C-alpha cells in the first residue's frame, strides 16, 4: 500500500501547510453581521426593555443556522451600554423578551404564530424567508444571485415603535404589505 503511505504524508503536509486560508464568507457569517448591525441602525423605545440595566437580546427562533458565528460576531459587544446577549428561543412566548428575533426560513410555518404573539411589541423581527416582509416581518434577508438583499416592511416597524435609520433604508427595498397583527 505504498500509494496510501504517500497519500497519508500528503494529507499531513497539507494540514501543516494550510495555516491561514482564504474562503468566501458563508451566507450566515454575513447574516450574523447584519443582525449585529441592526442593533446599531434601529432605535428601540425604553419600553422595549424590562429595566434600565436589562441586556440587549438577539434571539434565534427554532432552527439555528448560525452555528457559533452569531456568538462570535457579538462577543463583548454592547448596545447603548447594555450587554449584548444571544439567546436561542424555542417557545413563541419567550420571543417577546428579545429586541431582535431571527426566524430561519425553515420555520416559515411558525411565522404567523410568532407575529401574532409579538403583536406590535418592540421586537425587530428578521427572517431569511424571501417574502417574509410581505407577511409582516420587519426585515427580510433575501438571497439573490449569491448576494443578500434587504427588504423592509416600514409600516410593521413603525407599528412596533421602532425607528429604522435612513442609512439602512437607503440600501433596502421597501415593501408595502399589511402590518403584522392587523
Amino acid at each position, binding site marked *: 500500500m505504498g*500509494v496510501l503511505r504517500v*497519500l497519508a504524508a*500528503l*494529507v499531513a503536509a*497539507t*494540514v501543516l*501547510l*494550510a*495555516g*491561514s*486560508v*482564504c*474562503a*468566501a*464568507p*458563508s*451566507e*450566515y*457569517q*454575513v447574516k*450574523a*453581521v*447584519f443582525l*449585529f*448591525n441592526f442593533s446599531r*441602525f434601529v432605535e428601540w423605545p425604553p419600553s422595549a426593555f424590562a429595566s434600565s440595566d436589562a441586556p440587549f437580546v438577539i434571539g434565534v427562533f*427554532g*432552527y*439555528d*443556522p*448560525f*452555528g*457559533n*458565528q452569531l456568538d*462570535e*460576531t457579538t462577543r463583548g459587544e454592547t448596545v447603548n451600554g447594555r450587554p449584548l446577549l444571544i439567546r*436561542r428561543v*424555542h417557545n413563541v412566548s419567550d420571543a417577546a423578551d428579545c429586541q431582535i428575533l431571527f426566524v430561519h*426560513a*425553515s420555520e416559515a*410555518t*411558525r*411565522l*404567523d*404564530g410568532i407575529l401574532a404573539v409579538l403583536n406590535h411589541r418592540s421586537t425587530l423581527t428578521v427572517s431569511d*424567508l*424571501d417574502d417574509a416582509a410581505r407577511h409582516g416581518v420587519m426585515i427580510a434577508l433575501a*438571497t439573490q*444571485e*449569491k*448576494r*443578500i*438583499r*434587504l427588504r423592509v416592511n416600514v409600516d410593521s416597524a413603525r407599528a412596533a415603535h421602532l425607528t429604522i435609520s435612513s*442609512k*439602512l433604508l*437607503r*440600501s433596502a427595498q421597501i415593501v408595502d404589505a399589511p402590518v403584522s397583527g392587523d
Partner: protein
Amino acid sequence: MSAVAQSTGSLKQLSVDQLLDIQVTSVSKRSESLADAPASIFVISAEDIHRSGATTLPEALRLAPNLQIARADSVQYAISARGFNNAVGNKLLVLIDGRTVYTPLFSGVFWDQQEVMLEDVERIEVISGPGAALWGANAVNGVINVITRPATETTGTLMAARAGNNERGGDVRVGRVFNSGAVRFYGKYSQFDNTSRADGTPIPDTWNRGQVGFRADWKADADAFTLQGDAYKGDSEDRGSIGAFELPEVTVSGMNLLGRWQRELASGSQIQLQAYVDHTDRDDALFYKPKADIVDLDFQYAIPGVKHRVLWGAGYRYAKDNIDPGFATVFVPSSRALQWGNVFVQDEIHLRDRLDATLGVKAERNDYTGMEYLPSARLAWKVADDSLLWGSLSRAVRAPARYDRDVRFPGTPPYYVVGGPNFQSEVANVVELGYRVQRPSSLTYSVTAFAHLWDKLRSGTAIPVTIENKIDGTVAGIEAWTSYRPLRFWSLTAGVTYLHEDLKLKAGSTDPVGVDNATLRNDPDYQWSLRSSFDLPRDFQLDLELRRVGSLPQPAVPAYSELDVRLAWLTLGNLEISIAGRNLLHATHAEYGDAQVRSEYERNVYGQVRWGF
C-alpha cells in the same frame, strides 16, 4: 469566483452597501427546506461536483452515498438506490430540470445519452426510497433531480478544456442578460477511449458525444418563465460482426424542448405549468434500435398556510416509439403509442409544535395495468432545533414497460424469451425510519433504516421463457452519511450503505435462473466512501475521495477500493488549472459484468483549464 479572506471581525467593519455586495456561499432555499423533509435526501452541491473532478453525470452521481453506481463500459452505467442495480435498472426515476429521462422501452436510463453541462448544475437532489406519491410509478427506490442554475445566474462566459489518458473534452457557455431576464447557450464535446477486457482484448466502446443547448429565464410581474432545450449526437466505433450479422457503430441522437410557467397569486398560492417534447433515437445493431417521441404536461398548485400546506397537481404523458430489431432482441409490435395520466395531492399538516405529518397520494393510469394508487404517509418530529426524527410508510410500483410485455429474444425466431402478456406492476410496500442532525457550521449526519417489502418482481418461466411476476421478498438496509469540518479549511464527508436482499421464487415459478438474475439484482452488501477537501493557501484546493464497494454475487465481481484525487489552482481571479486522477489505486479494476467479457478501467489522469469571465 475570487475568494477573499473575510474574518468576522473584518466583515463588521464594512458598510451596509459593502455587505450587500459580498457574494456568499449559500444553499438554496429549496434545498434547505428539503433538508427538513422527512425522507432520505442527499444534496450534491455545485461545489461538490466541481471539486470532485467528475466529467460526466454518472461520475458526479458517485458523490451521493445513497446511490449504487457500477460502470459497465466506457459510457454505460448501472445506477440504482437500495438494490436492483443492473444495466436495465428500472426502479429509479431520473429528472433533468423537471424532464423525466427514462426510456419507455425499459423504464430505465440510457446513461450514455444523458449529458449535462456540469458547470451549470446548481445541485443534484438524490432521494433514496419511494417518491411515488409525488413523482409516480418508477420512483420506487429513489429519485434523482438534476437542477441547473437559472440563466440569470450564468450570465458570464465560461470555457473549459480537458485532456487525459482516457478522455478529452471541452465546454463553452455564453450567458447574456436581456431586459427582464437572461439566456445562456452552451456546447459540450467529449471523447472517451475504449476499455479492455482483463486479458487485454480491446472492447469497441470508444465514444464521441457532442451536445448543444440553451436556457432562458425571465420574469414579468408575478409570472416567471423558463424555456430550455438540448440537442445531442453520439457514436461508438465499428464493432465488427457476429458471423454474417454486421455490428456497425452505436449511434444516438436526440433533442428536447421544455417550457415552464410559474405564477404567484395574491393569496400566496403558486401555480406551475410545465410542458416538454423529447425526441430520442438510438441505433444499436446488437440490442435494438428504438426511436421515441414523448410529450409531457404537468400542472401543480401549491397553497401555503400555517396549519396545512397543500400541493396538488395533474400530469399527462404520451410516448410513441418505433423499435427496429437488433441481433439480440425484437419488440412485437415494433411500434406502440402509450399514454399515462395522473392526479396527486399532498398535505403537510402541522399537527402541533415540532410535529408535522405529510400525507400524499397519486393516482396514475397506464395502458398496461390501468389505475395504480401510490399513497404515502410521513411523520416528522423535530426532537431539537437541529435534529429531526422521521418515519414513513409508502406504497410504490414499477409499472410494466415494453421490455416486460413486448420483448422477444433473440432478434429472430425461435425465441428463447418472450414478453409476458400478463406481466403486472412490481409492487413495493416501504417502511423507513430516519434521524438527521444538522449543525451547519460543524457536524451534520443522517441515518436511515429501510425495508422494502417486494411483491410481483420480474421473473421468467422455463425455456421458452415467458416473463411474469413470480419473485417476492424483502430488501432492507441502512444508509448513513456525515460531514464534519474539523478546521476552517478542511472538511470531511463519509457515507456508508449496507444492504440485505432476501428474495425468493414464489410457489409455482419455473424460473430456471432464480433470484440471482443479472437483470433483477446484482448488488454489493455494502459500500463506503470518504471524501476530504482542503482549501490550501494561495488559492489551491486539494480533494481526495476513497471508496470501497463490496463484491457482486452473480455475475461475480470482486470488491474493490479506488481513490480519486484532484488538485486545483485558481489564479488571475478566474482562471482555474487542475489535475485530476481517478481510480488511482490499481492499474485496472472492474465494476460490473461477466469476467469473460466485462470492461476493466484504467487509471485515468487528466488536466483541465477553466476560464470564466
